[in-house]
């Protein structure tokens, strides 16, 4: 553990509490810090996922500006935590993401094109293949927390010890009742769940210190009798280590260990809340600069470089591969076509007759007036 009081002093929103950290701002291993046991191949794969996340994010923002996708929630600066937490999952573990956790979803098995589909207005990205243990993104704040806890509880009740459940949410979510209800149940029923609070310090325009008088978000777990850890969310190795340990504990707790954990991953929202948001209205860029110097992509690159793993040649190969994958994903997402009948599908396991009649009515209207009649701008 390393106390990093500098960050708190810098912008005065964080308390002077320990945060788990392994890498310094240049990617050197801090004295006394213990690196997670990851092979060279795993480290390089994690780095490639980070580069992919960064390029995806840049590209998505640009696609939104061009009108090719709708509102997008950028993850710039948060990719390190997203990638590392999902890398720490076993394949059978489940993930409950929010609308910002694009990289977390992808690393746990969702295709890149499925991340883009909902942004183009199609449900395809919510129809997740059966072999991928990811729930569709949660948009109402904190609602996933009791549900993730419930799924984990269900696995425990059914004796399915191979599954832990990871639940993402932000700092703002800790103000909602669902956060407290979910954590309380997790403690009472000792369920195999890992709560990951991505504290990016801004809930749209509301700063972390306006959410709670508590010094940290991690300490909220204490009231529910569950363990918590604060981790430098811009340090992928520290996040990985903390998460891996929480997943182990969820599934195979020691004699005096509880299963649930709250991880407060301290990050910073480098950019806007979404492409519809303009942060210059409510904050200056000073704090962001401090965090930008600790950019997770650069830090992991620095670490790999120090270990002699990241040659220029390898960087070039990674960049080219990432660009191609993103390009292919965009092509796939843009090839999806609207099928109005889809509106009526999957409302119930079996379509009620009343809904069938409504579907017939829409078909008749399309036949009679053509699809152009439905694309008139309502305004």
């Amino acid at each position: 553990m390393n106390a990093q009081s500098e960050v708190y002093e810098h912008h005065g929103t964080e308390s002077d509490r320990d945060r788990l950290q392994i890498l310094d701002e240049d990617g050197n291993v801090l004295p006394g810090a213990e690196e997670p046991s990851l092979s060279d191949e795993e480290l390089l794969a994690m780095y490639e996922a980070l580069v992919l996340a960064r390029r995806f994010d840049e590209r998505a923002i640009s696609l939104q500006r061009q009108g090719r996708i709708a509102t997008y929630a950028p993850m710039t600066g948060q990719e390190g935590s997203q990638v590392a937490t999902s890398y720490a999952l076993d394949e059978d573990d489940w993930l409950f993401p929010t609308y910002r956790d694009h990289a977390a979803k992808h690393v746990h098995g969702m295709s890149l094109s499925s991340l883009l589909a909902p942004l183009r207005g199609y449900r395809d990205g919510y129809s997740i293949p059966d072999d991928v243990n990811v729930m569709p993104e949660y948009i109402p704040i904190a609602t996933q927390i009791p549900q993730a806890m419930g799924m984990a509880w269900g696995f425990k009740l059914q004796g399915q010890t191979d599954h832990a459940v990871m639940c993402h949410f932000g700092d703002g979510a800790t103000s909602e009742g669902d956060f407290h209800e979910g954590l309380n149940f997790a403690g009472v029923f000792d369920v195999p769940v890992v709560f990951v609070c991505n504290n990016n310090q801004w809930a749209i325009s509301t700063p972390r210190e306006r959410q709670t008088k508590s010094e940290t978000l991690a300490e909220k777990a204490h009231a529910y009798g569950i363990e918590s850890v604060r981790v430098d969310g811009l340090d992928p190795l520290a996040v990985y280590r903390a998460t891996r340990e929480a997943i182990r504990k969820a599934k195979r707790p020691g004699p005096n260990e509880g299963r649930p954990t709250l991880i407060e991953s301290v990050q910073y929202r480098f950019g806007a809340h979404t492409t519809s948001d303009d942060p210059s209205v409510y904050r200056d860029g000073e704090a962001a600069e401090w965090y930008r110097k600790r950019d997770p992509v650069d830090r992991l690159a620095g670490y790999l470089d120090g270990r002699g793993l990241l040659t220029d040649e390898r960087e070039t190969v990674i960049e080219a591969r990432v660009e191609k994958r993103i390009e292919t994903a965009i092509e796939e997402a843009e090839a999806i076509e609207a099928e109005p009948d889809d509106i009526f599908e999957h409302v119930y396991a079996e379509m009620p007759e009343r809904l069938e009649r409504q579907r017939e009515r829409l078909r008749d209207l399309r036949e009679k007036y053509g699809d152009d009649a439905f694309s008139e701008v309502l305004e």
Partner: protein
Amino acid sequence: MSSYADTVREHVEAAGEGPGPDTGHDAVRETDADGPEALTLVEAVCDGLYSEMRRDEDVVVLGEDVGKNGGVFRATDALYEAFGEDRVIDTPLAESGIVGASIGLALSGMRPVAEIQFMGFVYPAFDQLVSHASRMRSRTGGRHGVPMVVRMPYGGGIRAPEHHSESKEAFFAHEPGLKVVTPSTPADAKGLLTAAIRDPDPVVFLEPKLIYRAFRETVPEQPYEVPLGEAAVRREGTDVSVFTWGAMTRPTLIAAEELAEEGIDCEVVDLRSLSPLDADTIVESFRKTGRGAIVHEAPKTGGLGAEIATTIQEEALLYQEAPIRRITGYDAPIPLHALEDYYLPQAARIHDALRETVEF
């Protein structure tokens, strides 16, 4: 019950339009080439908040991102600068907290105007609204009212993410003790909001975000009320009465103009107030035309269309010459935006149903 707040209010009222010179109004009324009086619907909401906050010091605005940020739709733009952080309050991210706190503020003698960022996020506060705000007056035998407004943008058509396009006004209209209103014009937005803030009972104020910036209209700078509970006839006609509200008023009027070219004369009634319903205007219009239709973007089943149709049956059955048609959203979740135009009533769908009603 006399309170400090009442005393302050009396002083403010005695002083006329408000304390001191009105220096902040220009910032709120963003003027443009259309002239200083022409506001969009969302600007009119902001203007209504401004003029009531100026008139009555007990009026406070609270919610997520309403202060420094001026609201995600800029509905509270410049209010923070004009009134300060104690009257334009950025809250933690907690809808039940916002509405529950507003009930408490109202009980203390204040006039809170809470903002829920999108209707799709109101549900944590549903308990506070339906278990408490709505029935505080009845369960305290009239001692405590809850003079509170809960504003929320609602409805589809803006290519928003999931949970940002719902139209669930029926949930609230179903609850005795709540009033539910929605404007379809900038002038009504200010007038209805003013009346809602001054009303002694809790009002759910639904803002049709599709038409937040669709057009401008003259909105007087001085405060004025559009009474709650009164519908507006937007177009007089003799062949069929169409009842609608919010963002659906415009496609309904477009369909009515198209039908006029076919010789069908539609009367378009903008209900404005969904609870209490203006049954007099509804029934009067129907008696004139003998044919009726309802347009709403909410799902069909259990929607307010059913309430309006039944009210007509109860009051004017013998005038009825055709089945009353409902042109509504479908009984399915509103789809992600690639398909939302198929879900929402469009002029073509409205046009088709009205012609069938008239030709029945």
